[in-house]
């Protein structure tokens, strides 16, 4: 079973995505801020990370940066799921090593699943 780490601080989004991902047969771990996310990524060693950007304690950019700096973790694909989405931000995330950026208002859970499938398969 493919493991997904979801780093997100908004409860409703966690609930919705978790439900959707589980229904698709993924093993979902959840972290509610950047720091917890970095801790969990080391513990869980997920197949993919879905991360928000604006979060307490540590932001999404730092999370990406640290994961990509860590030789053990750097190959884990990261998809950003954010409410924001300015070109500069998207660029920055891509430079840091994120593989995709989804703006929440432009995508729905089904489309997120499709992106995940594309990265790690079922």
């Amino acid at each position, binding site marked *: 079973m493919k493991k997904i780490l979801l780093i997100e601080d*908004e409860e*409703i*989004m966690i609930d*919705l*995505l978790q*439900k*959707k991902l589980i*229904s698709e047969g993924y093993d979902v771990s959840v972290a509610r801020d950047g720091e917890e996310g970095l801790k969990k990524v080391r513990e869980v060693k997920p197949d993919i990370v879905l991360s928000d950007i*604006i979060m307490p304690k540590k932001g999404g950019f730092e999370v990406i940066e640290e994961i990509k700096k860590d030789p053990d973790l750097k190959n884990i694909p990261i998809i950003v799921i*954010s*409410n*924001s*989405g*300015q*070109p*500069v*931000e998207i*660029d920055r995330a891509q430079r840091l090593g994120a593989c995709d950026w989804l*703006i*929440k*208002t432009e995508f*729905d*859970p*089904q489309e997120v699943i499709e992106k995940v499938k594309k990265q790690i398969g079922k």
Partner: protein
Amino acid sequence: MKEKSKNYKKTNSKNGKSLEEYKKQVAERLSQLTPILQRVSMGDFSENIVVPEKEDEFTELIVSLNLMVDDLRGFKGLEEYKKQTAERFSQLTPILQKVAVGDFSENVVIPEKEDEFTELLASINLMVDDLKEFTEMQKKAKEEVEKKVTERTKELKRRTDELENSRRALVNMIEDVSESREKIEEEKNKTLAIITNFSDGLLVIDLQGKLSLINPQAEKTLEVRAKNVEGKKIVDLSVYPFAKLIVDLLGEEIKEVFRQEIEIKKDLVLEATTIPMTQSDEKFGTLVILHDITREKLIEKMKTEFVSLSAHQLRTPLSAIKWTLKMLLDGDLGKITDEQRSFIEKTYISNERMINLINDLLNVTRIEEGKYIYKPQPTQLENVVQFVVNSYKDEFAKKNLKCIFNEPTEKFPLVKIDVEKIRLVVQNFIENALRYTPAGGEVTISLKCDKREVEVSVHDTGLGIPVDQQERIFTKFFRATNAMRVDTEGSGLGLFISKNIIDAHNGRIWFKSEEGKGTTFSFALPCVLSGEGLV
């Protein structure tokens, strides 16, 4: 007379009349004399006594009386003569008075009848004439002298004036020269003061590539001293680390740059611009302006952060609603009734509208920031259009509209575009056509290319835009009255954003519309090979 009275006596005695008769005769004769004597006594000597032809004893007396009267008359004539003379003299008085005051205009009138005065009067007239002539001569001489004096005075004045004018002109010239010098000096000082106190760093480079001037601000920014660098070749300034950045930017040939950002160090970002300095069309050097944009950069960063944050804050609840509704509709959260589905679908559409409105507002914010177009890439425009048209297929079907896409038969030249933004323009065009074309209508999307630019048109058979509102169609928040009646939801931002996007791509945007018949919106973008495209 003695002889007459003797004769009278003789006569009387000869006739032998009586004494009484004689006495009577004498009284009578004497009484005859009375009136005359009375008149004489009153000074009237006009009449003499008539002497009877017949001589008698009275004849002598009467003759004597007449002689006496004659004498008296003569005496009275003298008086009259005196009076007359006085009168004549008094007549002369006004003329002589005039003469006395130098008025010789009048002569004395000489009576035609010559008398003892005639000579005198003639003499007076001669004298008056002489005086008149003399006075006139004198006057003429005086006038001549005066005229000469006036002329000479005039001449003198003219010369003096000339001299004064020359002097004044000279003084003015001297003043002008010194004023000009002062002005030049002042201008120079002013210019120097401006250069010295200018908040931007300024460098002046001559045609030999030598630094001829550096102002204190530039000294401070680049951490150099004017006395060490002025007169040196620009390339030799590379020894100073901060100046080196400028040297690298300008190169040896002093390239033209416009608003080139240079990060000198942390918290110091400059914007360099070069301006060729010319005098009567001849270049004599280059002015380099180093404008400190650190603050602007900071504000820009803050603004980006603000926009990002507000976008996040506004979108967060909307995305939660969107996702929840979508999962409800997809059946992820359990089965729903048809009625529930219908309500949820409508709510979902409303939510989408809200999301679009916020996106539009964010886009406008970014347009106003002037940094809206992001990293344009050479792109096949027909692919972008195709993509958007495909995404609206369902919508067209739902509204019972015929969508015709005139696909180009050949590959077009590339256009350099920010794909996301151009996609937004095509979306706006198609959405407007969808929204304002009644069911059964037609929407035609066409592309064409004339080597210089690629043109995209969206034609509909919809409401059209009223003529009186056409010129405002691209303004922010504007919505046509007939469009508002059909749909109250539009933000009035779509075409404003579209125009800004096309303008930023150096493209053209326009429309043709007839109310009640339809509208064609078009834009054209320059091809990469033929035009400059985006810088």
